[in-house]
Each structure stands twice: as structure tokens, then as C-alpha cells.
């Protein structure tokens, strides 16, 4: 399937209102990368726009879309991380750590700098990376991807730079 075909699917999913594009909240900010969110995450962003936790999530998403430098890696402080790279599962997380409770947003890349955020969880509920909760949310992420985009596979890169531009590697 070509990128043209997957973009047509994206448009269909937007028309069906099962995914939503994120444009920067401030109209002066450029659109350099592209981010779509699932209906569930879109609802959380809208329903919690007056709260601190999801407002931070929104600011991080805006930074991603407007092309800001993103710290990437496996340190707890990295903004984005590639989960289980050795297994090549291609599931990424966005980390919103402040204020507590921290939130983890999981999703997959269609192409470099084109990310779809699919599921989310509170960090405290997910516990450590070997927990059942983590395995479950990763599985849910992949299930959501298949629901939306099958037979198109997510981007499978070898390095962080294959996925995101303008990164600081931790």
C-alpha cells in the first residue's frame, strides 16, 4: 500500500470522526510534523482542557506538531520513547510527567513525522515496563492500529531518526 493510499484512509477516518488532527493551539505556530489522535484521546483533551494534566499533554502535542526539539530515548525523563525497540514493535509513547499523575500516550508512526496517538494510561497504573498493564496497553495500541489502518503496517525504522526529525537523543 502506498503512502497515497494510507493518506486516503486517514482522510476517511477523519470524516468518520474516529481520528482527529491536532493543529497547534496558537495559530502563529507552524505545522512541521503531523499528529492525529484517536476519538478517546480527543475526548480527553477536550473534556479536560481546563485541567492541568491534559493541558500539559496538549502543549507537548503542539510542540511535536510545530517541529520543536524532542528528547527521545529510554531515560525516564525523555519526552518520547520507542518501546521495546529490540522486538521491533514500533510502538511509541509520549510522556507527560508534570503535574502528577503522569500520562503515557501510545501510538505508532505512519511515516517519519506522521504519528497517530491511539491509547493512553496513567503512569501509576501502568507500573513498570514488564507489567501486565504495560503489555496490555501495547497490545491495545496495536489492536487499535489494525482497526483503523489494516492492512497498512506502521512504520518500522531502525533508528530514532527514522521516525522523528529534530530530536535530542538521550
Amino acid at each position: 500500500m502506498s503512502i497515497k493510499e494510507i493518506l486516503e484512509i486517514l482522510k476517511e477516518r477523519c470524516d468518520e470522526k474516529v481520528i482527529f488532527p491536532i493543529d497547534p493551539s496558537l495559530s502563529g505556530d507552524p505545522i512541521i510534523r503531523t499528529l492525529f489522535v484517536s476519538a478517546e484521546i480527543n475526548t480527553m483533551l477536550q473534556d479536560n482542557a481546563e485541567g492541568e494534566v491534559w493541558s500539559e499533554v496538549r502543549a507537548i502535542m503542539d510542540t511535536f506538531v510545530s517541529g520543536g526539539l524532542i528528547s527521545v530515548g529510554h531515560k525516564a525523563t525523555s519526552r518520547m520513547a520507542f518501546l521495546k525497540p529490540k522486538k521491533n514493535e514500533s510502538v511509541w509513547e509520549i510522556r507527560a510527567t508534570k503535574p502528577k499523575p503522569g500520562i503515557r500516550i501510545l501510538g505508532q508512526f505512519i511515516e517519519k513525522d506522521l504519528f497517530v496517538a491511539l491509547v493512553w494510561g496513567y503512569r501509576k497504573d501502568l507500573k513498570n515496563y514488564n507489567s501486565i498493564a504495560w503489555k496490555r496497553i501495547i497490545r491495545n495500541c496495536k489492536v487499535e492500529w489494525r482497526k483503523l489502518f489494516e492492512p497498512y503496517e506502521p512504520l518500522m525504522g531502525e533508528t530514532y531518526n527514522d521516525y522523528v526529525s529534530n530530536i535530542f537523543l538521550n
Partner: protein
Amino acid sequence: MTMSQTSFLTEIIGGNGTISKGKLAYFRERQRNRLYDFIVSRFLEKERSEKFSKADLARRLNKEPAQITRWLSTPGNWTLDTISDLMLAVCGGELEFKVAPFVNIKQRNSNSLEILRVQNTPASPTTKPTMILKILKHANT
């Protein structure tokens, strides 16, 4: 997820009432990210052009390398002191200040959905979305 610029900034531009916790949190994170981008991008430039390393930065600031690694991986715990230290050691200077009023904010000409107009572009099957976006932006100017 598109919202009008007016509604997003109303409580900041329009009135004297209490600004919501959400808006305060949004702009705190935004400022952290902007400062992080500004300073760490300059560190990366210096790393490339002068072979300036994290170890060099740690030595200049008399800090443990682990502390420098934490600072460079996230702006979450930066203080004004952190910013001052990094500006001195990385940029050899200090920040200058000016207000960018939101009332003067410019309007964007394009949105993310425009990449979905791919069928109306001359893109080849291998064209990357970012390339398509650039094509569309160019077409809008």
C-alpha cells in the same frame, strides 16, 4: 481538534478574570519546551561544530555528568538558575526579553488536514507526508 484562536486565548487577551489552571499549565509547558528547544539546539550545534560534549559542559559548570544528562533530557525540572547556567556555558551569553503579544498573533494558512488533499497534488506514491505538506504550503503562498 481545531479550535478558533479567539476561543483559545479569550481568557488571556480579553479579560481580567482568573486564568484557568489548564491554560496556566499549557503555557508553563509551552515555555519550558521553547526554552529547551532554544538552549539544547545550541548545545547540539556546539557539539557538532566545536566537539563540545556533555562532559565538557559538566566540567564548565562543575556538575556531575549525570546532572547534565538529566538537564538535557527534559526541561521538566529546570529552574531559573538552571537556565542561567546553561545559557552561560552553552551560549556564552544571557537571554534577552521582549513580549510577543497574543493579540498580534498571525493566522496560519494551512492545517494538518491539508496533507489529506494528497489526491489533488502531483505527489508520487513514494512522496512523504512532510513533502506533501511543503508542497501544499508552497501552493498557499
